[in-house]
């Protein structure tokens, strides 16, 4: 009997076969079952459901984002270790992975690192810090925030499920057709990739709208745009980029999906299709995406440098101007990712020059940070060490980027290890170091105790040394002609460099381990590391004016802002104790599970598309529509905390 109407193309032939994926495919479900059993054993289900799953508190949503991002960092890091182990051993005759598996692993590494580590950590930190910095009680749309997070979660589940059943895409992190088209890749791997990114991407798009409105509408009274902390500016610019760029990704992935499920011909190499159109569209999203990730990291560094140098940020206005300049420029450089397309010398020259121009506002920022430190009494805490590592690493990455902006030179290094080294230089050195610094910086505000500083510094040094070992050899290899994405090579002179690179990845692994250790150790010693003042770094911005951990209502009394670095100057003037009559009734959103239900149904739409289970797509679509209608016509979504209750809560939190 034909069951394909019920189960689509699900079939045992898609079960993993080679030992590496088989191991992971068995290990992952066992780990999940173990966690679920542990939750049941310790009777934590109602705690997890009530305090976390259904929460609309931005800080908790931020912590969940960050948890997923760290988990995915370990997963993507394991991929990186496997890739470099393979290239280090390629000439010994030991084949860890065949070509197909190697391709799947580097696709997994790239997709997971960008979408689930980079984006996850970014939205995590924004959720944790932004409302507090703005003096806001919450984000503009707390419910939408929950939907965004759970869509991100659903995407994460889908991309990891492909490992267990069906295999990962082998099309690279951007899935270029025609390789990812139906003709060359009929299996479910590419569909998993498409729907994981599509669902997580829609979540990001909704977050982009949410945070933009938060910044424009939820600022404390008196906080004009030019009095905002610079982190808020960097987020505003990044979120405008999200709103402009992510719809292009949605449309592009949608068209690729139509090529695959409906046999259309957008990006096929026959029937009039044009694969280069995909590459243009995906980079029209992809290049701004790089800035979406890195601009908030710049914002974090700006806060950290000003705090630990104990000086106001040098050149606030030029910093804002540089951010806005980058916002515009990031949309007119996408073609530099494929100078070799054959668009002609004039087009290449335009995009090459635009790319070089971006280096100017970026350079401005580095000088701003250096001048902020100049004559400051800098405290070299862990976040500051991350900054120092960033300043060196990111500058090297920036310089090699300008090199590659020269089209003639790019023809030489296009698709070589040189490129791989360059973008890891800016993404690890810029994005990751920035987010790590942010984790160490804001951790006490979220949890009420600081992270162990020594272990944090050690972790930063390990990352930095590992980074140099892992990627400087790749620059050299790239110049020698080593192509990227190849599991083997026949030039014996490359072996030592690949071995050094492999060792470097190992040292980075030690850095990641030290970071986890610093968290575990600090949780264990949380009494000793407790932050009783709410202001462990002698900070400048409003998040340090509330107790640690920040209460669920953020500010008992909405602060009024008169200048930049409001909290710093308030401390100078002497902080007035709030009086009983200053407290007013506040309204907060009720917890709800509707966001989770919407995300589960959306995930099932994706699953249905991947396996061609059309009834599931239809049913899940109706469920999504029903929940959206139910929520948007529900006027009873908030509860009130009276001034009395708030007064008592605040006294307790400050005691």
């Amino acid at each position, binding site marked *: 009997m034909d069951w394909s109407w019920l189960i689509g193309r699900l079939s045992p032939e898609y079960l993993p076969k080679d030992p590496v994926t088989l191991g992971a495919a068995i290990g992952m479900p066992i780990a999940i079952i173990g966690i679920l059993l542990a939750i049941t054993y310790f009777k934590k289900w109602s705690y997890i459901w009530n305090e976390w799953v259904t929460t609309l508190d931005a800080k908790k949503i931020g912590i969940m984002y960050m948890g997923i991002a760290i988990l995915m960092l370990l997963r993507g890091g394991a991929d990186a270790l496997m890739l470099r182990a393979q290239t280090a051993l390629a000439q010994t005759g030991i084949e860890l992975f065949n070509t197909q598996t190697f391709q799947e692993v580097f696709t997994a590494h790239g997709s997971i690192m960008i979408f689930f580590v980079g984006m996850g950590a970014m939205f995590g930190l924004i959720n944790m810090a932004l409302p507090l910095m703005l003096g806001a009680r919450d984000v*503009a*749309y707390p419910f939408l925030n929950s939907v965004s997070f759970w869509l991100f979660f659903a995407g994460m589940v889908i991309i990891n499920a492909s490992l267990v059943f069906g295999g990962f895409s082998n099309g690279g992190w951007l899935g270029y057709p025609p390789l990812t088209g139906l003709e060359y890749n009929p299996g479910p791997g590419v569909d998993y990739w498409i729907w994981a990114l599509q669902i997580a991407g829609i979540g990001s*798009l909704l977050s*982009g*709208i*949410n945070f*933009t*409105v938060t910044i*424009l*509408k*939820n600022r404390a009274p008196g906080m004009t745009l030019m009095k905002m902390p610079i982190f808020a500016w960097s987020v505003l610019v990044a979120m405008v980029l999200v*709103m*402009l*760029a*992510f*719809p*292009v990704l*949605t*449309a*592009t992935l*949608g*068209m690729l999906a*139509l*090529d695959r499920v*409906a*046999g*259309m*011909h*957008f990006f*096929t190499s*026959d*029937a*009039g*299709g*044009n694969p280069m*159109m995909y590459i243009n*569209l995906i980079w*029209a999203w992809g290049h701004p995406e790089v800035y979406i990730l890195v601009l908030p990291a710049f914002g974090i560094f700006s806060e950290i440098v000003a705090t630990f140098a104990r000086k106001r940020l040098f050149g606030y206005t030029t910093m804002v101007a540089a951010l806005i300049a980058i916002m515009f420029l990031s949309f007119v450089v996408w073609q530099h990712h494929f100078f070799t397309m054959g668009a002609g010398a004039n087009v290449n020259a335009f995009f090459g020059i635009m790319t070089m121009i971006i280096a100017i506002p970026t350079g401005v920022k580095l000088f701003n940070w250096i001048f902020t430190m100049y004559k400051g009494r800098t405290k070299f805490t862990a976040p500051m060490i991350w900054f120092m590592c960033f300043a060196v690493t990111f500058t090297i990455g920036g310089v090699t980027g300008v090199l590659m902006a020269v089209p003639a030179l790019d023809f030489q290094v296009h698709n070589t290890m040189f490129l791989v080294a360059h973008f890891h230089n800016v993404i690890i050195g810029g994005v990751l170091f920035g987010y790590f610094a942010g984790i160490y910086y804001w951790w006490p505000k979220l949890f009420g105790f600081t992270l162990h500083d020594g272990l944090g510094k050690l972790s930063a040094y390990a990352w930095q040394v590992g980074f140099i070992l892992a990627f400087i050899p790749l620059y050299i290899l790239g110049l020698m002609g080593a192509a990227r994405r190849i599991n083997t090579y026949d030039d014996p002179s490359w072996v030592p460099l690949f071995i050094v690179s492999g060792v470097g990845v190992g040292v980075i692994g030690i850095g990641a381990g030290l970071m986890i250790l610093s968290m575990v150790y600090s949780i264990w010693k949380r009494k000793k590391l407790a932050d009783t003042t709410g202001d462990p770094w002698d900070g400048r911005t409003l998040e340090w004016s509330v107790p640690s951990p920040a209460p669920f209502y953020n500010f008992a009394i909405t602060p009024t802002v008169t200048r930049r670095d409001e909290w710093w100057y308030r401390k100078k003037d002497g902080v007035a104790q709030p009086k009983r009559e200053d407290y*007013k*009734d506040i*309204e907060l959103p009720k917890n709800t599970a509707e966001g989770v239900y919407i995300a589960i149904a959306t995930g099932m739409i994706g699953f249905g598309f991947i396996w061609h289970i059309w009834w599931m797509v239809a049913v899940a679509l109706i469920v999504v*529509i029903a929940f959206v*209608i139910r929520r*948007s*016509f529900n*006027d009873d979504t908030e509860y009130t905390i009276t001034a009395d209750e708030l007064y008592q809560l605040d006294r307790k939190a400050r005691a």
Partner: protein
Amino acid sequence: MTSHAAHLKEKAEKASLGFWLYLMTDIMVFASLFATYVILRNGTNGGPASQDIFNLEFVMVETFLLLVSSFTSGLAYLAVRRGLKRRALVLLGTTIALGIGFLTLELYEFGELILAGHGPAHSAFLSAFFTLVGTHGLHILIGIIWAIALGDYISKHGTSPDALRKFSLFVVFWHFLDLVWIFIFTIVYLLGIIS
């Protein structure tokens, strides 16, 4: 104004701003589809080109239905504002009917093409055409579902300020789809006939 009323007003302002920003993101979706259509327009794969399959009179009727539905949705909004519940529901019903009429014509056009062997899988041009026009049609369908839910809400809760706020977002959405259609009419159909 009490703090509760101020809180509601603030929420309404945020919803409105956010909705406009969402429309901007939707414009980017359509921009990508338009760009792809323009690039792939000549990829006909030996099949029909745009001047062979478009019928301007037919599209004229579609356009007329959509523009009139926008007009009635605007009148319905004014009726909600004045608290005329019955009139608002009748006008909203008219909007829905016109929207369904538009969608029926569009599906008829698609059906004819597919039956003639010119389905979206035939050539890049037809893929791009079906996807661009179909995405607009999908938005119309979402708008119709939204309008029905809105009608249900108003018939139960009357023309409250909450209803007006919800209604204003719908009207903006519906006008937005008109605007997109004007571009489809010009770039796809009109230029398609001329070239």
